[in-house]
């Protein structure tokens, strides 16, 4: 579903992403892990054709991203890092607006299902600008899955959600993958990755320092947090923290 080869992105002299290669197959729930500012969001923006790489190639859902970024965004459901629904539409109007952009014919029922799933039907007539951050995240979740994409790319999926909704979303994502969907998430919360991902990549300062399945022998019998910190910390940093 996702093929990335030697991907790099520079901003002036700063290398935000440095020679990253990745391959994610159908039915995987891939988690890109890394500390803040390590390049996770930049990779997501390149995967979805929102920004162009400095070098390298990307293929998403069989489409060359550089050649047809619009087709990629048609096929994929995307939740960006910051929840940004337009301010003066209500929650329900926003979902209908997204359905129109995605040229869906029948959408009222699907929208209704999402209001029920996230239990925020009582706020569907509130303006997006007045919604809490958690509710906005629910709305962004709903818009990404409205057209039932085969691949979803999600930047920090559980941010701002309460524990009940977090559980609901985790179960949903696991079920989605079980039914043949593919999910790419980025997060810096290791626990999430451990609970739901089938495979992971760890990125640090723009470089992919580890990829593999969570049941990889390398990880067996090891503390996942320790493993992560070893890869993303400067020498002496962990002991200093301790």
């Amino acid at each position, binding site marked *: 579903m996702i093929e990335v080869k030697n991907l790099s992105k520079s901003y002036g002299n700063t290398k935000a992403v440095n020679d990253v290669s990745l391959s994610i197959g159908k039915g995987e729930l891939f988690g890109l892990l890394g500390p803040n500012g390590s390049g996770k969001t930049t990779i997501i923006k390149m995967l*979805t054709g*929102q*920004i*162009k790489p400095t070098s390298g190639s990307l293929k998403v859902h069989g489409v060359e991203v550089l050649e047809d970024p*619009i*087709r990629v*965004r*048609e096929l994929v459901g*995307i*939740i*960006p890092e*910051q929840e*940004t*629904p*337009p*301010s*003066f*539409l*209500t929650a*329900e*109007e926003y979902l*209908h*607006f*997204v359905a*129109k*952009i*995605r040229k869906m014919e029948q959408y*009222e029922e699907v929208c209704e299902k999402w209001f029920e799933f996230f239990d925020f039907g009582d706020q569907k*007539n*509130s*303006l997006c*600008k*007045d919604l809490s951050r958690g509710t906005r995240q629910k709305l962004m979740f709903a818009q990404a899955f409205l057209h039932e994409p085969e691949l979803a790319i999600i930047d920090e999926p559980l941010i701002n959600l309460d524990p009940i909704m977090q559980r609901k979303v985790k179960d949903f994502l696991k079920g989605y993958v079980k039914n043949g969907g593919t999910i790419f998430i980025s997060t810096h919360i290791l626990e999430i990755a451990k609970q739901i991902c089938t495979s992971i990549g760890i990125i640090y300062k723009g470089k992919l320092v580890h990829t593999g399945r969570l049941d990889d022998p390398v990880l067996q019998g090891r503390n996942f947090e320790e493993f992560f910190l070893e890869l993303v910390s400067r020498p002496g940093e962990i002991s200093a923290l301790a």
Partner: protein
Amino acid sequence: MPSIYSMPNRPYMTLTHAANNEKYRDYSRDFMFDIFKSMIKEEWRMHSNIFGSGGFALFPVFIFLFTFFVSLVLPVFREIFTDAQIALGMHYFFLLVGGMVGAFGLMCREFMNRRFGQASLIAYSSRTLPVSQRIIFANFLVKDVAYYFALYVLPFIAGFALAAKLVPSGNFQLPGTLLILLLTLSLSFMIGLSLVFFLSTVYAHSGKLLFSGLLAISIFLLFVFGNLDSNVFYSLPSLSFFLNPSENQFLLSFVLITVPSALSLIFLKVDYPQTKKSFSNSFSGLCGYLGSYRYAAFVVKDFLDLKRSEGGLGKVIFSFLLPAALIWMLLSALGKVIPALNALTLFSLVLGVLSSSMYNWLTEYDIFASYAFFPLRVSDMIKSKLNSYLFLNLVPFLLLTLLVLNKEPSILFPSLLLFLSISLYMVSILVYLTGLSPSINLYNGKTFALYALSVMPLLMINIILSMFGPYYVLVDLMLVPLAFYLLGQSFKKWDCIENQLF
């Protein structure tokens, strides 16, 4: 030199200290000048971040040049208006600028968050810094006065003074008059700033209190002044001081600045009452009316943004119809002084220019980041805004049609043609230069210069040609293909620019 970002831990922050119940000492007084400096830096960095540092640094230069060139026609204005009326216009303009600066500074959190994520200014940081709200806001006021004096007031006066030296401009040429003008325009600016600060403080306590207070003051003023006539407007103390310098008027100006500011600081409250609004779904119904029209969803969304945002559709009246009415009155007066000028033709021209400001409204409520993850290009969004622009242009189109039919039906066709071609050309220039962010990108010095160069000569040529009869406008039809070419180029240009802020 300590700064408010590097304040050491203070003893009053410890439990022992609280237990001893010693008197709280506000250490923020030690950092007064640091707060002021930091706020000035913050304001500059905020603007240079949005507009580009080089471009924004040139902005006062363009205020200077713009005022200079406009002031060169002062002799013509003096044929139509008295010096007192010109001074009145300038003083109320600066009163308004002061008010706008104050309103933006105090209520810009939403704008800031849209542009910079969850950003916060020092002005809102009293909860996180060991500095009292009053000290912070006192600095905020002084910072606004100093910063915008350098940005707006000084370049304006300098441009005006230079032009007044070069063209016959009566008393405005005298150095003494110009110095008093510098003082009184600054006073007007500060009165506007101070009044808005006060009104926002009242509003923070109670919206109802503000509106009932304003109503009571209006009734009181009507009662005191009886039938309002234009002389009432000369009661603005800074203006009265300019026209007839006296100690009393200066003191009154001083009181109008200090008392509202002091009251605002005493009763300071920074959290505004929030009203949550709820609307039933109008989007789907309105889209239904537009059928399979390609941009239906976007046009309806823009309409709902305009309707539901602050001011609602009243914006059309206050930001468009009222200025249009004032311009019509001005042009009618001008037509009487210079009979060669056809007021209706000129009005069609100015209306075309004024209409392009509607594009600014349409681009104010969202940023492309809200759409970047949908199958849309920047050019798709620009096209959707242009479609909404076409719909909004029906308002000036109808206004012009009614006016021309009422005054001189024989020139209906050329007037409408002129309006449409100018409106299209103006919006194409705006789109080419500023993309989806005209209200931000136009503040860039270079962009503003290009905009002025693309528009001013055209307007001057049109004014001159209009003296040869209304059908000269057929020449303006050449602008139509040029506008379409510019729009085509704009779509390519903005699709290639990778910028998360637009």
